[in-house]
């Protein structure tokens, strides 16, 4: 099933009220299904809202049929694949910003955010645990990868998903808008769209981005969902600053044509990269200058 219709749900959320957000998800799912969508993607923390602070443990869920919220979403996923953003409560009481891919009534994959911005206006590292894996996964359409906001402000997670076979990157955000000097759009909106286009071009893959809208404690979220094709061309863009359901027709056969013309994946020298990474990290270790703090290392 290389051809399918994807929906990008750029929604506003109720802060800390999972049940109310679930209702909105179910309404959007119904709407997307009526419009012929096969897959519907919600933004980061779509079930909870973003500025959670001490609400974090209260809104956390386990992504399984035992959880009342996920039970509803899993039921809905029997007709339509879903990506939802939530706070994951893990059994040792660590809380992750997570994205779940649900299909056919099953949890297909959960991605835990690996980069938690804790600088400037962000304070995620204070409230959340760091994810420690980046994996592509199989769906009924093809092989996909999911990343959450700051994950794709770093080049390595999209790069890893590319090498892991992702044909479509599902990027989800709750990105606060900032930078007011540009013509017509916020600086942050332009920046994110540029890197999305760059990933699509460099990795000759589909890149879909769904971002929140609305306000929380003075922060604005700009929306502007996009899909770029493997040639880096913009297929669709949702409006800025308002809720919208944006549909895109995806044909994964496009990858064959682009990658035949431009065999960047075939020619990627991963062993060269691994060798040089080992050298760089080895040298830094010798100098006592490890860039990756121990707390973020694999369990």
């Amino acid at each position: 099933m290389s051809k399918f219709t994807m929906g990008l749900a750029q929604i506003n959320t109720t802060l800390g009220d999972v049940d109310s957000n679930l209702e909105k998800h179910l309404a959007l799912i119904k709407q997307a299904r009526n419009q012929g969508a096969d897959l519907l993607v919600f933004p980061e923390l779509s079930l909870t809202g973003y500025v959670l602070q001490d609400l974090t443990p209260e809104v956390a869920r386990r992504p399984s049929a035992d959880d009342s919220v996920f039970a509803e979403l899993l039921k809905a996923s029997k007709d339509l694949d879903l990506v939802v953003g939530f706070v994951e409560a893990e059994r040792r009481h660590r809380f992750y910003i997570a994205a779940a891919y649900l299909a056919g009534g099953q949890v297909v994959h959960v991605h835990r955010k690996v980069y938690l911005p804790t600088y400037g206006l962000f304070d995620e590292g204070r409230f959340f645990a760091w994810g420690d894996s980046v994996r592509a996964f199989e769906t009924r359409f093809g092989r996909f990868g999911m990343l959450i906001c700051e994950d794709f402000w770093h080049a390595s997670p999209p790069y890893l998903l590319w090498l892991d076979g992702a044909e479509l990157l599902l990027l989800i955000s709750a990105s606060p808008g900032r930078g007011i000097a540009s013509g017509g759009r916020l600086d942050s909106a332009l920046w994110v769209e540029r890197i999305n286009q760059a990933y699509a071009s460099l990795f000759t893959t589909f890149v879909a981005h769904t971002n929140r809208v609305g306000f929380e404690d003075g922060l604005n979220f700009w929306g502007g969902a996009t899909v770029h094709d493997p040639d880096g061309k913009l297929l669709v863009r949702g409006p800025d600053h308002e809720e919208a359901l944006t549909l895109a027709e995806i044909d994964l056969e496009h990858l064959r044509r682009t990658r035949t013309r431009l065999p960047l994946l075939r020619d990627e020298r991963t062993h060269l990269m691994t060798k040089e990474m080992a050298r760089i990290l080895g040298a830094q270790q010798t100098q006592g200058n490890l860039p990756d703090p121990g707390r973020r290392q694999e369990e």
Partner: protein
Amino acid sequence: MGQIKSALEIDPDLISRILIDFIRSELNRAGFSRGLVGVSGGVDSAVSCTLAARALGPENVLALSLPYRTTSEQARVHTAMVIEASGVNERTIDITSIVEPYFEIMPEMDRVRRGNVMARARMLILYDHSADFNGLVIGTGNKTEILLGYTTLYGDSACAINPIGDLYKTQIRQLAASLGIPEEIITKAPSADLWQGQTDEDELGFTYDEVDGLLALLVDGRMSPEGCVRAGYAAAFVEQVLRRIQRTQYKRVLPPIAKLSNRTVGYDFLYPRDWGT
């Protein structure tokens, strides 16, 4: 207006869109559909009032004009122009009879103290009308005065939400022009109007154009003071502004609570204001 440095240029249509949505969203989340603005005839309150009218509908906005006996005729005329153009509800309450009895029993008060009392009397009336009008007070403080601490604590700085607090004075002027606020309101010398003939720039000792350019480098550009001097600002001016920002930091934060327990409001009891909305 012609000397705006590129770092201070804004896209006024985009900003209006965001701020109008912000006002509507923040008020609605708090359970309100109405707002109040203290209108002085100056450009800041003209912008807040106009944005509020567009966000909530003019019938849902109350502009309070709160003159003192020394308030200039020009300020009164400009206030009337703003209210007329935005179509909002209007009420004028002269604060003279409210503050003068206190001034009479405190004859030693200097004009700064008197000015603060007037600013706080205006706050008192705004907040009383907030209850009466069933609306929230929409702020009129700009980024320049917030950073310089050029404001009366619990006076003109008091509000429920502030749509314009991340815009420098020179940016407010650009926004005001795009909102159709009369040129004479935009270009006149800014004044807190706390005494006759007072102007912000006389009192501060520099112009908004000068200080906004410097603040954009220091605050937004994160440039070092030395870098600002290399960029052409006088070292004494940079020092003066930095000292002022530091000295007035207390006005930009809530009062510290002495921490005693394991969980204390402000330190480790952290919930968003928009909690549950």
